[in-house]
């Protein structure tokens, strides 16, 4: 029972890992998803660290090297597309792209409800097959006699139990 649930979770994380590395464009970049060498600076997309330690693209092609050379000159001579290309060389995601939400919460909520339902089934089985009989004081006859006694004793006569009983007509109000 527990092993199958661990297996499902392992399958889910493996699925997400494969999805995140499936694009071939990732090979040119500084990510190494399976083993990260933490002794060298890492690239990160973080809202609280706007200037990452290293640029996103380390191995520049010839075209990109030419762009970097042009960047050393006056920036007014760069076209808009060149400026954007330079930005994308050093950064992977823009702030709006970083902040963009995902639909993961639906999966999480669905998983929660699914496992809650499964737990409900387990609890039901337990109620049927594990628990013994309920005490005799909860039987219909006993509860009737108990209710009559509570009415006779005038339990909570101002707001509560006996207040709701009509003593003349001998019935509930």
């Amino acid at each position, binding site marked *: 029972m527990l092993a199958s649930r661990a297996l499902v979770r392992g399958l889910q994380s493996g699925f997400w890992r494969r999805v995140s590395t499936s694009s071939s464009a990732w090979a040119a970049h500084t990510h190494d998803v399976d083993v990260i060498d933490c002794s060298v600076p890492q690239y990160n997309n973080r809202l609280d660290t706007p200037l990452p330690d290293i640029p996103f693209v380390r191995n520049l092609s010839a075209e990109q090297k030419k762009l970097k050379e042009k960047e050393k000159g006056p920036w007014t001579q760069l076209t808009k597309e060149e400026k954007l290309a330079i930005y994308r060389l050093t950064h992977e995601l823009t702030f709006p792209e970083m902040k963009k939400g995902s639909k993961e919460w639906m999966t999480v909520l669905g998983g929660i409800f699914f496992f809650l339902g499964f737990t409900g089934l387990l609890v039901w089985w337990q109620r049927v097959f594990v628990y013994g009989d309920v005490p005799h004081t909860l039987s219909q006859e006993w509860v009737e006699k108990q209710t009559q*006694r509570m009415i*006779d*004793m*005038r339990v909570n*006569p*101002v*707001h509560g139990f006996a207040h709701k009983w009509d*003593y003349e007509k001998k019935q509930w109000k």
Partner: protein
Amino acid sequence: MSLPKPAMRGLLAKRLRFHLPIAFALSLVAAAAFKFAVTEPRKQAYADFYKQYDAMKEFNAMKEAGVFQSVRPSGE
């Protein structure tokens, strides 16, 4: 590109000046609402109950029903 200099001081004071009166007002409203929705009706219900309450009659009714241990119903 000349933005105005933002407020550097007095930020908490400004916030408190705005929120404290509101907080006090809302607390008073909550207390008044509880008093007039809960405690006054409750006091009135108890007063009305005991205005028409005949203790001996209730006692005899309870006695006949057999709920006491020290005094049994008149039949026994």
